[in-house]
């Protein structure tokens, strides 16, 4: 069993995302063998030219989508944190969709069951394809660490330039 600290997920960096949706196309081809953003597990939101971000499942601890399912169709993998869906049990009622703050779990246009990112079994295709390296397959701890290093670098950029 792993903890939330060790679980990697797909994180998008709004500073780098250009809203190109390449991730959506890569996802639908990998998982659905077709090009169709409405079947992608990751979706891009462009609010204006300066605000772009791709959003996928955050692998929440005690995932609210799982708790919300009245038919026990959803289960969170103890190993990876991925939300697993039992299509036989899911009837598309959408409680999980309401429970998710990120719009990451969606109703499939054809099967009428819900679907969500499964990290492509550890090698997310969206991350591989992202032309801007705006997507990262990483843990929350590493994200925090990177942010700290970046801000300290910024604060001390003059000192860093000085010869040691």
């Amino acid at each position, binding site marked *: 069993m792993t903890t939330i600290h060790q679980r990697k997920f797909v994180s998008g960096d709004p500073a780098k995302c250009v809203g190109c949706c*390449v991730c959506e196309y890569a996802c639908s*081809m990998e998982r659905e063998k077709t*090009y*169709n953003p409405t079947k992608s597990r990751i979706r891009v939101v462009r609010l204006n*030219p300066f605000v772009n971000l791709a959003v996928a499942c955050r692998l929440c601890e005690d995932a609210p989508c799982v708790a919300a399912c009245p038919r026990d169709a959803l289960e969170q993998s103890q190993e990876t944190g991925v939300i697993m869906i039992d299509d036989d049990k899911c009837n598309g009622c959408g409680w999980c969709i309401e429970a998710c703050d990120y719009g990451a779990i969606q109703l499939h246009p054809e099967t009428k069951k819900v679907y969500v990112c499964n990290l492509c079994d550890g090698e997310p295709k969206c991350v591989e394809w992202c*032309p801007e390296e705006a997507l990262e397959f990483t843990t929350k701890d590493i994200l925090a660490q990177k942010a700290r290093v970046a801000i300290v670098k910024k604060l001390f950029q003059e000192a860093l330039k000085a010869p040691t």
Partner: protein
Amino acid sequence: MSYAGRILHVDLETGKTELEPLKEEMAKKYIGGIGLGMRLFLDNSKAGVDPFSPKNPLVFATGPLSGTMAPSAGNSYAVASKSPLTEGIAESKAHGFFGAELKRAGYDAVVIKGRSEKLVYLWIDDDSVQLMDAQHLKLKSPHETEKAIREELGDFYIRVSAIGEAGEKLVRTASIINDEFRAIGRTGMGAVMGSKNLKAVAVRGTNDVNVANPEEFTEFVRMIHERMKGPATRKYRTLGTPENVLVLNALAALPTRNFTQVTFEGAEKVSGEYLNERYIKKIIGCATCGMRCDHIGMVPEGPFKGATARVEFECLWALGPNCGVDRLDAIIEAIYQCDYYGMDGISAGVIVSFAMDCYENGLLTKKDTDGLDLRFGNAEAMVEMVKRMGSRKGSLGDILAEGTMRAAEKLGKGAVKYANHIKGLELPGYALRTLKTAALGFAVSFRGACHLRSGAYSPDVKGKVDRLKIEAGRGKIVMSGEDLYNVVDSLILCKFSRGVFYEGLEEMAKYYTLATGIAMTAEELRQAGERINNLARVINIREGKGTREYDQLPPKITSVPVPDEGFVKGAVVSQKEFDIGLDDYYQVRGWTREGIPTVEKLKELGSSDLIPIVKKKIRSQTSKKKRKGGK
């Protein structure tokens, strides 16, 4: 098979819709985009139709790669019709997100005819097609319209292609804009849309788009993605096309003050370098594209604070150096206003510079301009004139909204001397007296003055030819550029990505086959490009605009010597050398001396169905000659 296999016909008068299957023969012969669009225009219109008549069809066409993951081609669409500027064939392309959505809705093309009684928008929701009331959207900008439609239909992912006030008011240079910054810019398609009382086309497409060979197609796309990170797209990813400002200025090829000079003393201040350092806030991308080229500029301070626009060389040049303006804040504001009213930025700039030239030369006075001091370099006046034109405000705004050619005719007093257009379409930003292959290419372009119909400026700028003269051989350069660009615009590949096809047509043919499953060789594809050029020419001939007398350059280029000091001083394109170029071009095209495609040529291209149109013309030309000879 990445074609949708369906063409949608919409009659705005009756609200009736009809579906027509796309035949494989048609698909292979005309590819998609401008090829398919122009063919559908021909098949659905009669000779001599008025551009603003309900009978003039407005064709939206996707490409064979639209809706797939193909970078730069997966997101595109084209529009074809009869141009209110040239009264000949019109076509224009745009990228962004709209084209992919239209393909996913299940259409290779939408042919729109008729005129709605009231302002409406077309709502295509997969198979459901409806006309929706748009009276509350009257005079809204394309972007405001997009936001309002998404809001009222309740779906954030709906894509919209719309016109603004300029289109509604039949400003002849009006554009159609999708996804905030992407324009069907040239040839006045927004005015045709406005004449139909059609405010917008809104689309939601949820269908799969499949390719014939997904594994190999994906690998091909991966290769293109990798190449897009390399040298072929460097310019577009870094400074963007405004890099051209200093390059062309150094070559004495930057048209300045309505094509009077060829260098601009304020070039540094409107350069790509200056722009990126001070104004560009973010570079974003279209759907499926890994290049990301959209340089979004924002004015940080001053009278135009907050103005936001996508800044490319052409509009920057047209509203900047071409108007003698060296202030980027005003240029960004003017581009924003062009997008707001829905107007082609190139044409808008060249029309304003025409008016400035008339003002400086005493043909227009302050009385005519309603008090505006329309001198070259007056940035505020330039912005104000753009706004007046977009809304047909004031008598001069109303006249200029007709385009340079018609405005010059209306003003009289020799104003045609200052009118820089070919066939009625305003010139883009290349100095034709010092880039003479470009001069030939622009002149023969079927949609009027255009750098993107052949890319004929490229051999001049790159020093592959002597750019200060026209000689035999230039015809072939122009022709191969045209045929290639016809393919590019029918596959609707973004021209910024043309360099990533290291093997040119060979790779484009492979791309096509992997997506559509239809066998295609490089030679077949080249021939399709040639066929499409001949098709466009024949349409122009049908409209009485396709012969030699229309392939001519403006007076500034042919009779006013370059005044700038240096090796280019005194340069003009003389009629004599220009005629050498035209003869050479017609000959390699297999056309008559008058520029009419021959029966043999059309047969060779498998376009026998077009022969009746040219036969009539050739007959009338020969009888005219005979009559002349008899005198």
